[in-house]
């Protein structure tokens, strides 16, 4: 029976599901838009992946599961994770495996972006942007729509440009109005798109890398790293080659799958994975304000087939402590 490890990265816009084999190679990686609830997307991804790998390998056994991304906690209780890891560490782990002597990692996803600094194979600094949309995939999507060029073609267009227009890019609002202005002045779509790419990169570096030393090798990953225009803009900005590794869009999920696998190997524990049957269970989430005291905590509740399997957000443990016994049973 084929032994596999599973990694799930739940972001706000996309969900990534990855299965790796005994050599840490990705045998199935899915990049899905999170439509509706993340739980539905996770299940959809697992069903799809399961169909694919059982067809290819016959019976499989999942020996480790890791989750990451902003929805890592939720994903963790739904599938039964062995490791729930923050996305910085997960991304860095996968990048270092691919490019062992990497020094700077640029990551641009749908809704956030980060920069990670590596020295001697270890993270030494990082910065994350979760507030400002300038410098993320959503911003690009939005502008693609406005210009009327499909996002997949963005890169091509950018490469065709001969003199990119300079677009003020401190913030999305200014970038947008400036772009409209340039459009009205008669700039071509190619030049505008190239200008946008440059402004996006400038913005990203200004926000996240200010005052930090940018050293090669550079690695660029995340959903936006598909875009040749942005890659080129990065190379221009740093004056050096920028490597886009294989599996560039699913690095977080890949990283956490490897981390979970390593954790299980080191500790020799049994996996917490609840099995592929979870795709058939019914899950609900609920948010409520506890009125137990003046803190009025916002408490999250996850319900599986009518039974609560997790609470979080309660400061005093009033809710989550009720569960300890049940959690232990489900871990058996």
């Amino acid at each position: 029976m084929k032994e596999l490890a599973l990694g799930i990265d739940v972001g706000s816009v996309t969900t990534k599901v990855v299965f790796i084999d005994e050599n840490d190679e990705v045998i199935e990686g899915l990049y899905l838009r999170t439509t509706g609830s993340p739980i539905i997307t996770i299940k959809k991804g697992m069903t799809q992946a399961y169909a694919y790998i059982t067809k290819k390998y016959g019976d499989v056994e999942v020996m480790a599961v890791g989750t990451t991304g902003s929805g890592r906690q939720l994903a963790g209780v739904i599938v039964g994770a062995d490791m729930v890891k923050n996305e910085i560490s997960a991304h860095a782990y996968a990048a270092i495996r691919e490019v062992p002597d990497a020094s700077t990692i640029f990551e641009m996803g749908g809704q956030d972006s980060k920069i990670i600094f590596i020295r001697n194979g270890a993270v030494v600094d990082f910065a994350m942007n979760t507030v400002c949309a300038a410098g993320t995939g959503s911003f690009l999507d939005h502008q693609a729509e406005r210009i009327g060029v499909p996002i997949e073609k963005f890169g091509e267009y950018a490469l065709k440009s001969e003199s990119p227009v300079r677009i003020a890019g401190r913030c999305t609002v200014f970038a947008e109005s400036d772009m409209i202005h340039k459009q009205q002045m008669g700039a071509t779509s190619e030049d505008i798109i190239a200008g946008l790419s440059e402004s996006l990169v400038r913005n990203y570096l200004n926000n996240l890398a200010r005052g930090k030393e940018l050293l090669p090798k550079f690695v660029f990953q995340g959903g936006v790293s598909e875009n040749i225009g942005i890659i080129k803009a990065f190379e221009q900005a740093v004056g050096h080659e920028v490597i886009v590794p294989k599996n560039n869009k699913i690095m977080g999920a890949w990283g956490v799958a490897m981390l979970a696998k390593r954790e299980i190997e080191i500790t020799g524990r049994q996996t917490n994975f609840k099995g592929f049957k979870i795709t058939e269970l019914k899950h609900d989430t609920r948010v409520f304000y506890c009125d137990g005291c003046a803190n009025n905590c916002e408490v999250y509740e996850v319900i599986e087939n009518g039974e609560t399997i997790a609470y979080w957000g309660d400061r005093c443990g009033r809710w989550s402590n009720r569960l300890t016994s049940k959690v232990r049973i489900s871990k058996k």
Partner: protein
Amino acid sequence: MHRKITYTFPRMGYSYAAFESFFKILGYDVMVPDPSNSKTLKEGVSNSPQGMCFPFKILLGQFAKLLKENPDKYFKIVSLESYGPCRFGYYSPLYNKILEDMGVTNFEVVNVEGIYPPWYKGVPRFIKKLVKLVGWHAPWAGVRAFVIAGWKVYAVERLERKFYHLIPREKVSGSSEKAFNRAFERIHHAPNKVKSIKKILNEELKKMDQIDHIDDVELPKVGLVGEAYMLMDYSNNLEIEKKLAYMGVDIDRSLWVTNWTLDRLLKTKQHLKHMKEVNKGYLDFFIGGDGQESIMNTILYKKKGFDGVIQVLPFGCLPETAAKQILSNVSEDYDVPVLSLSFDEQTGDAGFVTRLEAFVDMLKSRREIKSKESKAKKAESVTTR
């Protein structure tokens, strides 16, 4: 019309227990505002000028809730404002103005400023303010209230430090938290005698020591610096200390009520001189708030062998924002990782915890590299000998 006065004051971490006692001992009614929750934050933020720093908005929301819920009481809001060019000096006039605009009138703000140097002018002025605040008392009653409140502050701090020390070492997760909560409640409601407070403190410390835990572990050490109020109030800094401790980190907070007041009220001169020396080349003049302290303490933490420093930065705080820029230089020059975390009403748990976890992961891997390097060096020196 003469109404009975109820005192209230900014709630800050666990220290409220002591300040509450101070007024009670003097025979006054006192009410502590509730900690922040989404409703008070919303109220505070929507009624404050946008440019005000976050702590002001927090406190405004907390006070507004208290005053509105008790329309039949008349409050004296005690505001302990310090000198300096930051916005701290505007707090009380703004409370007055904004609360009145909100239609809340059952209050007055009493501003107890810090003691300005030189002390022989500052101390009498401070006493005058105190008298204005609590009225004339037999001097010994005032002194007694002061001493007992001081003891409570000290006791709570000792317990808190023990608590954060034990969390990453406990064998049964949550056992130190239970012990701490009980201990805190006992101190909170302790009889107003120094002897009883001391006794309870010793008993509880001993009990906490008996919690099943492992003492000889090497944990990554993180120092916490930043703006005093946010740093000391767990309800607004999202319990950063507890969270880090549960992640397996030894934490140390640079500002506590005791050292903060002592440094500012009594040793102002030496304190400023010390800061000047340590901060030479970075920031050797006063910029208000605790900006200078943040830089000094970061350097001192590094010298004491800490692995990293986290700066707690309330959104809109001028001194800390200035310090943040300087800290990135300090971080580079001294090779100490510094994570600046900005707090506002939108700071959710999610992104916050991600940053903390990633920072802790990073400190751990830096540790591994360092120990590998030093081992390699040792091996090298052996072979070359």
